[in-house]
């Protein structure tokens, strides 16, 4: 299954911002983060197909997975 991963903000500057991962088995968000080259402890917000998610959530097939740094409300 293909997962489109996008990184935002200051997360792991050396890591490609957008990548498509072909997963052979279902993984958690945390496992995908590591596979993408991200340090999961840097992540503040996870959004899968527009829905806020958590590190231990299972990544659904053929989804869009976004990793954001810690953020807070705007002004």
């Amino acid at each position, binding site marked *: 299954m293909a997962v489109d991963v996008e990184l*935002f*903000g*200051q997360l792991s500057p050396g890591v490609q911002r957008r990548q498509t991962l072909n997963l052979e088995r279902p993984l958690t968000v945390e496992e995908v983060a590591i596979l993408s080259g991200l340090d999961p402890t840097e992540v503040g917000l996870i959004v899968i197909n527009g829905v*806020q*998610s958590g590190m231990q959530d299972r990544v659904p097939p053929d989804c869009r997975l976004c990793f*954001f740094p810690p*953020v*807070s409300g*705007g*002004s």
Partner: protein
Amino acid sequence: MRLLRVDMDRLIVRQEQVPARYERLGGRALTSRLLAEEVLPACDALGRHNKLILAPGLLGGAGVTTAGRLSVGAKSPLTGGIKEANAGGTAGDALGRLGIKAVVVEGQARKGELYLLHVAGDSAQLLPATHLRGLGTYATSDQLRTEYGAGCTVLSIGQAGEYLLTGASIACTGEGSQRSNHAARGGLGAVMGSKGLKAVVIDKADARSVPLADPELFRAAARRFAQELINDPRLGPKGSMHLYGTAAITAAVNEMGSLPTRNFSSGSFEGAATLRGEQMRETILARGGEIGTRCMPGCVIGCRNVYVDETGNPIVGTLQYETIALMGANLGLDNLDDVARLNYLCNDYGLDTIETGAALGVAIEAGYARFGDFESIASLLRQVGEGTVLGRLIGCGAVATGRALGVRRVPAVLGQAIPGYDPRSLKGNGVTYATSPMGADHTAGNAFGARREVNPLGVEGQRELSLRLQIIAAMLDSTGLCLFARPPVIADPQLMVDMINGIYGWGWIKEDLDRLNRELLRTELEFNRRAGITAADSRIPEYMREEPLAPHGVTFDVPDSELDAVFDAL
């Protein structure tokens, strides 16, 4: 501590000792209490019986980082209820250092007359300001800094305030050449205009320091507070707020389907990539602008910026998320240069960018401009400054524009435009918009940062979350603290209590602070009740309960019974 009573009827300024019952109130707690006790809730918001009140927070002037915000309070001509809007800049700090607990502007100058209030050390006087008539806030600030010295603080209204447009803001200068901090929401600039008050000038020369009851306790707490902000991954020097400003959240709000797009007809914008904080930072740095600047002296977060054009000349300082949402995606604009130019015009006319962005979206829906077409939109906005009928309508906000132009889809609650989070996909904010005495105001209890605590798309838990956030917002607004600086004092309320006790020696415990915050909300709710506002006036617009929002296909489905029960636990 003293109160300044500015009598616009007789053009005199009186100084009063602060009555004991107000001694432990600051910022919003003080503006709202004074309004509740001295203003008839049913009065005409633009009439002589309303009062405009300026008050630093309890920490104002003491040198606590991020705690110099100035609260501005009045009955709002936009919501018809009690209102507090606050601004960064140097006014909160300057008034706090001068021992001025509040400036209460009362009565009304004779029609056509215009004045400025000059506060210099222990004295204050009203002076004619005819020479400032018709000037925007930038020119007003520049002129007054020329007259009173570069170090003074200037609060001013632009053309919108002079015309009594209900979307008018009050601009406040900051350090250096900064002129664009705005107490923006609720049309308080129109209240200032209705008084015949064009500007307030506060001299810096005689500013003093706040006496400390327990210097050791205060300094230890203030130091720890600053250090915790610096250590916070969101707020410190490596945090997204410092690196990208409030625009850091643009991409996240868009991904979550809550970014107002084309008059709130979608929650995600196909052009959002070029409105992101990352794009903004890259553009600003490449052009020689500034990132990570601050709006208040000593702020360790530094979320402001100076957005410049291709030749490096400033367009506006600062470009913020709410403006990007309401004047970018909401108008179908995907170019930050365009958003910055609209932002500049709003700042200069003295207009709330949220209210005006929403009004422009409504006007576009009525066919008066085109989504994504900067020139047609800017042309509409310029009409505010020109004072045309259509311009004045837009300057009066989304509801007035919708009524006059026959548009039903008006994104507003209690007469005030909805900020940059569509309540259909961020329901916690919807609950706040529909219940806060402030109307649709994200700063009254923003659920965006709540992450996984409550599902933003669900109904469960939103009522409790909103109440908790509204109580926290009351605390922030009463102490003068920036809402972004809340994490350390939410994690440990004793930290805030220690700073307050260090200044005043009141021996407060955490429960005293909590009680004060709850009392503030009760006071405001009671004012609105006496003003004739009912729950029905505060509902989320009906179309948002019927019209599914892309991409999630959700409506605002929090039952009225849940909304009506928000304050049961207050």
